[in-house]
């Protein structure tokens, strides 16, 4: 058999700097490096390298770098090399191509074509170091009217809400797709920051019940790990209809990863594949969704907000409108750039729409129908920085979910090989020797640091615009201008072009 | 303020000073140094002879040690203890005490050998003065006979080698270091050193005749300088004469108390509890003196302290042959040879009783800890323990506590 595989990366070692400490050898789960005793030097097998950057980061003398393998097929703007290598793989295996993390293809990134305003002469800037800046948000339905008694106390019964110290939450990533230590770090950071993290469809490990005040529990189509205590223990319950990385299909965790605590938490036998079906088999219409929303509310005595999470697809605005009338308190929309532990490559790369456009159209539609206050909108699907957060809020979001960004904060280098389960950073793996590498004390501190920094940056950007609360920023499309966008794009986003007043 | 008087100015006294000060910071301490020198380390005398250290460095905590510690040093020989009046009489003066430590150490034993008085240059090798006198004779040249192939005789030989290659070491025993090694280990040491040292073993001295030693076999050895290293005797006189319980040494309990109230003893002069044989005996070792002295000091200052982990120990490097041993060589013996190194482990009742290592001694302290703590050897393989050991042989909780948190020795 001919080996058609081309190693995508090449390990380049500066032998003048290499001191044979063998850290690269000890820390590579793909067994790329080894010390050749007879020759007294380190040898690297580049074919196995996935460019996770672990060895580069740990090398004490910075002797390593990973570069793209310059071995090139004949240039072809249409038949790019990746299409060829993917066909070679399928011709060899007959299998569906699987990928991890979010869509890497060069579709437009709208956040990078949107610019934020700043105040100059009129409506001056606010100095966030001197003036109070309100970054707290409350997620949930907003009552149409507020009634007060004689003393001025509110008598209207307020629906259940989530209180966030800043408009960012940790997105759903299941225990099984990521490690126990990663969950521990997310839970601790959520508690310390005063925000929430999401269990994803893997259930909630009993060690994390103590963080229940900061936990959103997810009920996905496979209903893994869903039992009475699980629902009781969440601060909110999220019904997952879809996920940005793989709209229309369910989740898949291979049996090899269903071991020990993962199996117990998901409530399925060890070694069995955890395949979530594409639809919830009890939701075949919007009325069915309303029924499930209210069943959950009944079961939890109406004390917890219910979130419905959908992927951003073509008629997302109509779907959102239906959900806003179903009794859900929060709609979470996941754009096509969203991450995943494993998804079929073709679906990840070709299905769904950008979150920026989805958000613009959903927010507009709900306002038009006068039901915008029925729900809060939370968006996800590649929020990469505090600037993306601000732009999302201006486009109409109440808050954002961050998935990939939190993993990156914990050490992920987006090598996109999570599906092999050999994550060198201890994040997307269940191997105990690898999970060890993610010390939750360190990882939680990194998450807290990142979001503290983002919060500060958000305040700076808001202050620059002369705005002092997220509430005043939300849906404030006049604070945004597009650049390099056409008429249609500007219309969907609901923003003007840069230069227009 | 409590008055502490310490008779003797060597290692046990050093330990006692540390022990007293740890419990009674403002203690009034007086040391009666019969040897009339500031604190120095006796084991260093052979190294000084060998030029591996200097005469100044023998004062291993500095010549001003007593001043630094706020201790009054009196260079006088203690002559009598009056336990009723609680005073010491030393060279005409009286030194009152509340608590007394007797750390008078030992003296080289010189048996009444026929003709010894006819020998010109004869030496013992125990104190700094002994070393200085020997060095003075060595500098004039000549052949050296050392009688006694124990640790002192052998270390002396190492120093003498700096001056002459012409050394004979004689001993009644069939091998060198008879007390410090096992027959197998001693044989290996002898074999390794026989090209450097002229050993006359199984040689019992009969008499001297000027510069000639004559042995029971009839063998004769001529020499210019004689060193007698035939062992040491504890200097028990001061306490024996006032009715303390004395055997070969002064008997003390685990708090280093003699049977006389307010009188403690420590160091080479005592017979104290030895943890492997679980009985009292003379140990006469450097760490035993220090730790025993420290225990005495703490008890003298009112803090309850017991010395229950004293074991025989020996670490030395003789002409490049490293010998490390601890405990007693009793029970079941396991031997291994690693390269040129001989190693033996002695176990009884599932517990390590002793070990001896010739050559590399890396992490030997782990074996010593097993002996001292009487930790069961469990599933550990004796041969593997001898080949090499590290913290992974301890139970996991002990190791985690030792590395991750507070741990008691």
């Amino acid at each position, binding site marked *: 058999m001919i080996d058609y595989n081309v190693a995508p990366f090449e390990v380049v070692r500066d032998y003048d700097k290499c001191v044979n400490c063998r850290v690269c050898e000890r820390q590579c789960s793909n067994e790329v490096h080894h010390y050749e005793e007879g020759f007294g030097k380190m040898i690297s097998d580049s074919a196995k390298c996935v460019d996770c950057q672990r060895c580069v*980061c740990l090398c004490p003398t910075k002797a390593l770098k990973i570069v793209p393998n310059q071995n090139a097929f004949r240039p072809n703007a249409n038949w790019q090399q990746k299409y060829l290598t993917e066909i070679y793989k399928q011709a060899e295996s007959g299998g569906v191509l699987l990928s991890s993390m979010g869509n890497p293809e060069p579709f437009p990134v709208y956040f990078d074509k949107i610019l934020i305003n700043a105040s100059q002469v009129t409506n001056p800037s606010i100095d966030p170091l001197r003036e109070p800046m309100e970054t707290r948000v409350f997620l949930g339905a907003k009552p149409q009217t507020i009634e007060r008694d004689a003393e001025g106390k509110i008598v209207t019964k307020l629906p259940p809400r989530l209180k966030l110290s800043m408009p960012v939450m940790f997105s759903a990533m299941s225990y099984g797709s990521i490690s126990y230590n990663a969950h521990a770090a997310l839970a601790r950071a959520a508690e310390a920051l005063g925000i929430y993290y999401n269990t994803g469809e893997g259930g909630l490990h009993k060690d994390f019940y103590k963080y229940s005040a900061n936990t959103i529990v997810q009920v996905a189509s496979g209903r893994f790990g869903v039992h009475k205590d699980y629902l009781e223990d969440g601060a909110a319950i999220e019904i997952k209809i879809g996920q940005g990385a793989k709209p229309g299909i369910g989740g898949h965790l291979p049996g090899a990863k269903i071991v020990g605590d993962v199996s117990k938490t998901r409530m399925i036998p060890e070694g069995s594949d955890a395949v979530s079906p594409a639809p919830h088999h009890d939701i075949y219409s919007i009325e069915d969704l309303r029924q499930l929303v209210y069943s959950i509310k009944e079961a939890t005595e109406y004390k917890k907000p219910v979130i419905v999470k959908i992927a951003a697809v073509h008629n997302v605005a109509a779907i959102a409108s239906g959900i806003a009338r179903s009794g859900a308190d929060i709609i979470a929309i996941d754009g096509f750039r969203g991450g995943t532990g494993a998804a079929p490559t073709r679906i990840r790369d070709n299905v769904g729409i950008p979150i920026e456009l989805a958000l613009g159209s959903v927010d507009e539609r709900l306002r038009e129908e006068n039901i915008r206050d029925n729900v809060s909108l939370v968006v996800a699907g590649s929020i990469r920085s505090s600037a993306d957060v601000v732009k999302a809020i201006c486009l109409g979001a109440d808050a954002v979910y961050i998935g990939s960004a939190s993993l990156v904060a914990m050490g992920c280098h987006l090598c996109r090989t999570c599906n092999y389960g050999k994550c060198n950073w201890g994040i997307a793996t269940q191997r105990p020797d690898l999970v060890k590498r993610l010390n939750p004390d360190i990882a939680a501190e990194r998450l807290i640091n990142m979001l503290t920094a983002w919060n500060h940056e958000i305040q700076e950007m808001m202050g620059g615009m002369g705005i002092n609360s997220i509430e005043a920023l939300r849906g404030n499309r006049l604070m945004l201008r597009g650049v390099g966008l056409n008429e249609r794009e500007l219309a969907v986003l609901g923003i003007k072009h840069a230069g227009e007043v | 303020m409590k008055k502490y008087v310490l008779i003797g100015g060597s290692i046990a006294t050093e330990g006692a000073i540390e022990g007293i000060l740890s419990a009674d910071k403002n203690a009034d301490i007086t040391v009666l140094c019969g040897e009339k020198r500031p604190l120095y380390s006796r084991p260093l005398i052979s190294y000084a002879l060998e030029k591996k*250290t200097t005469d100044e460095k023998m004062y*291993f905590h500095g010549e001003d040690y007593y001043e630094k510690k706020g201790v009054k040093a009196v260079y006088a020989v203690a002559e009598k203890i009056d336990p009723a009046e609680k005073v010491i009489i030393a060279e005409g003066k009286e030194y009152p005490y509340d608590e007394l430590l007797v750390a008078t150490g030992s003296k080289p034993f010189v048996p009444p050998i026929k003709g010894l008085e006819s020998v010109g240059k004869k030496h013992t090798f125990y104190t700094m003065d002994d070393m200085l006198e020997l060095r003075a004779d060595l500098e004039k040249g000549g052949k050296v006979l050392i009688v006694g192939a124990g640790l002192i005789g052998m270390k002396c030989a190492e120093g003498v080698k700096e001056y002459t290659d012409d050394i004979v070491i004689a001993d009644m025993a069939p091998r060198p270091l008879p007390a410090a090694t096992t027959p197998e280990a001693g044989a290996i040491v002898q074999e390794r050193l026989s090209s450097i040292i002229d050993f006359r073993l199984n040689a019992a001295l009969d008499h001297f005749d000027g510069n000639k030693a004559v042995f029971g076999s009839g063998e004769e050895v001529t020499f210019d300088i004689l060193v007698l290293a035939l062992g040491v005797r504890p200097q028990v006189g001061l306490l024996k004469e006032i009715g303390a319980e004395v055997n070969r040494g002064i008997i003390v309990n685990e708090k280093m108390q003699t049977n006389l109230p307010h009188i403690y003893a420590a160091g080479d002069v005592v017979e104290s509890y030895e943890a492997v044989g679980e009985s009292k005996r003379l140990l006469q070792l450097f760490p035993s003196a220090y730790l025993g002295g*420290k225990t005495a000091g703490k008890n003298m200052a009112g803090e309850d302290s017991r010395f229950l982990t004293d074991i025989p120990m020996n*670490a*030395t*490097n003789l002409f490049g042959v490293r010998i490390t041993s601890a405990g007693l060589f009793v029970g079941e013996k396991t031997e291994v040879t690693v390269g040129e190194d001989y190693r033996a482990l002695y176990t009884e009742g599932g517990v390590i009783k002793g070990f001896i290592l010739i050559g590399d001694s890396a992490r030997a302290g*782990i074996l010593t800890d097993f002996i001292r703590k009487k930790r069961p050897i469990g599933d550990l393989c004796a041969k593997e323990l001898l080949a090499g050991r590290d913290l992974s042989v301890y139970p996991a909780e002990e190791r985690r506590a030792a590395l*991750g948190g507070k741990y008691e020795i």
Partner: protein
Amino acid sequence: MKKIYVKEEWCLGCHLCEFECAYANSGIGNIVLALKDKEIDPNVKVLSDGKITFAVSCRHCDEPLCISACISGALSKDETGAVMVDRSKCVGCGSCVMVCPYGAVRITKEGTANKCQLCMNNSCGEPLCARKCPNGAIVYEEK
């Protein structure tokens, strides 16, 4: 007194602590020059019981047995309570090695004793192993 503590549940057995220790005590400013083509003999050693790994270095005991056995005064406690080695005084008798229950002190090929001195004897000032451990398995703190 701040000491080095090891959290063996986080030790990855990467051995970076050993190389950083050798670098810290090399007296050479550039890490490549300090380590290139050298056989290292660091004061911290990564050991294993077959299942987990852990780094072992001097515990700077409150009542150090090594000091009680040292005949030359080479081992002593400084004002902070750290156990320091004055190699110029050491005569290589090996008594310290014989008593240390952790196997943390050794006789080097130069024939004198050496062990961790919390990087107080080199220009790092604070233990480099703790600073460079990638997973927080070695910490330098007060307990």
